[in-house]
């Protein structure tokens, strides 16, 4: 087999492994299903009444944003899984095998895409129940939105792969994810229009890629003016992958167990 065919074969073996272990980790399954549902319900019914989103019901404004946040964090399972593999010595085993050097990471990021599809279906389902509707959206725009979301999730999987490889334990990965990256999603248009934010924060939120992608999703699914958001979102995803995928692979080559 050629080296590309071997990489693909190794990737699929490891992606299958990542999915096969999920039934034995009920906490992960909850993270993928119950947690996003809780977030949607809390924001729609607790904050929804108090947040003004001119021209839209809050649930319509919220859903594209909260899906962006959830999908971006879908890759977090990669950070947890890789740091666990490092801690438990599995990375040593993989690195001593005649397998592709990238496959541990491509296998992770690929299984994340499949998990994100599940997460997306759950989120859209609960969104429709809570009253969300596509507005002025063609089938093509809806599909393009889904493609953008999955690509964003894929880009963040690489970021989280790097986080996982630098973490000595899943707890450390958790701390990095939720103290450094999670707040970024709030300083954006994910949950509220940025216009209500104070100076400084507002300017930050306007250039935050989470704002770009959330606004792109709203233009695709709610018919808001797109400006440059949609193509800029794809550019952002490409930049994140181009930067973080090589960094993560380089780190994988040298990472040591424990």
């Amino acid at each position: 087999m050629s080296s590309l065919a071997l990489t693909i074969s190794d990737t699929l073996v490891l992606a299958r492994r990542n999915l096969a272990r999920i039934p034995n980790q009920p906490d992960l399954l909850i993270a993928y299903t119950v947690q996003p549902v809780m977030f949607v319900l809390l924001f729609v019914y607790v904050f929804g009444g108090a947040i003004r989103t001119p021209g839209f019901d809050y649930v319509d404004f919220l859903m594209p944003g909260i899906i962006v946040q959830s999908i971006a964090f879908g890759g977090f399972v990669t950070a947890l899984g890789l740091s666990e593999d490092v801690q438990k010595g599995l990375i040593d085993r993989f690195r001593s095998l005649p397998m592709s050097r990238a496959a541990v990471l491509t296998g992770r990021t690929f299984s994340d895409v499949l998990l994100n599809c599940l997460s997306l279906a759950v989120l859209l389902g609960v969104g429709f129940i809570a009253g969300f509707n596509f507005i002025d959206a063609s089938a093509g725009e809806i599909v393009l939105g889904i493609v953008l979301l999955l690509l964003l999730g894929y880009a963040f999987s690489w970021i989280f792969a790097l986080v996982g490889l630098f973490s000595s334990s899943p707890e450390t990965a958790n701390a990095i994810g939720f103290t450094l990256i999670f707040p970024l999603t709030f300083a954006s248009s994910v949950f509220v229009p940025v216009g209500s934010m104070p100076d400084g924060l507002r300017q930050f939120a306007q250039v935050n890629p989470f704002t770009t992608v959330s606004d792109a999703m709203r233009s695709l699914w709610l018919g808001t003016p797109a400006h440059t958001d949609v193509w800029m979102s794809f550019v952002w995803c490409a930049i994140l992958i181009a930067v973080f995928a090589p960094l993560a692979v380089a780190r994988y080559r040298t990472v040591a167990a424990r």
Partner: protein
Amino acid sequence: MNATEDAIAVEGLQKSYGSVRALCGVDFTAQAGTVLGLLGPNGAGKTTAVRILTTLLKPDGGRARVAGLDVTKDAAALRARIGLAGQYAAVDENLTGFANLEMVGRLYHMGRADARARATELLERFELTDAAKRPAKTYSGGMRRRLDLAAALIFRPPVLFLDEPTTGLDPRSRLSMWEMIEARTAAGTTVLLTTQYLDEADRLADRIVVIDHGNVIAEGTSDELKDRVGGERLEVELEDGGDAERAIAALAGMAAERPALEDGAVRAPVNQRSGAIAEAVRRLDAADVGIEDIRLQRPTLDDVFVALTGHGAEVDPDGDAALDEAVA
């Protein structure tokens, strides 16, 4: 690799972590089909050596060949010819035993049917068939080690690396691991085994390399190493510990050196094996010392270690224990 070439050949191997020298120019070889024991305390450099030989780590200097392949230049090809198992029992706890083995087989690029058949065969041989469909996190420590060893063997590698394979195991699991390892070596696999247990090296290894602070301090068969320490030793356990001084005085006349009290037994090196016990019993009886147990013992590898390094094998006097763990 032809039959006469060494399966493992290490020359002047060096590795430092910052200012800490883990290996300071180490040489050793292992003939194909033999077991080489790498013996040393925590932090001696054993794990570092294994990590270099299994391509996980690049050496700073020196050369190492395994199965005829250079560990740095031919690393990719070498990985298809080695198996690695060890104290960390690197198995996926959230996969079943069967799925673990199938995955590793597939990553050695075995076909699916082949990997599955081999997994079933190994689970059976390692007495894990009943647990094959359970997640590995439900396994006992001994079962995990066996699964880990099975994973290392799935592709029938000609050279097997076992990094402290029984550390932390209960005596029964230890014995069972030893039997599994002996079965492999009987089948012709070359094994490099690291251990800090002297009895383990004694039992399993054809040749032993003793390393301490990154240097080889002795090399040979278990018998050769013991001969370096010298003769037989008489050990007497007393009925009444208060008699120790009288027992030492009574045995002094027949001992090569002054007898000493250690771990509750009086120990006396003797030059002459024949008649030593009868002589000792007569002398102790004359001194009216009650004997609980009396035996002649060949020196243990522990004695070897103390003689070579001035300290025991399982204690690290500099307090830099677990160097391997800290810097690896």
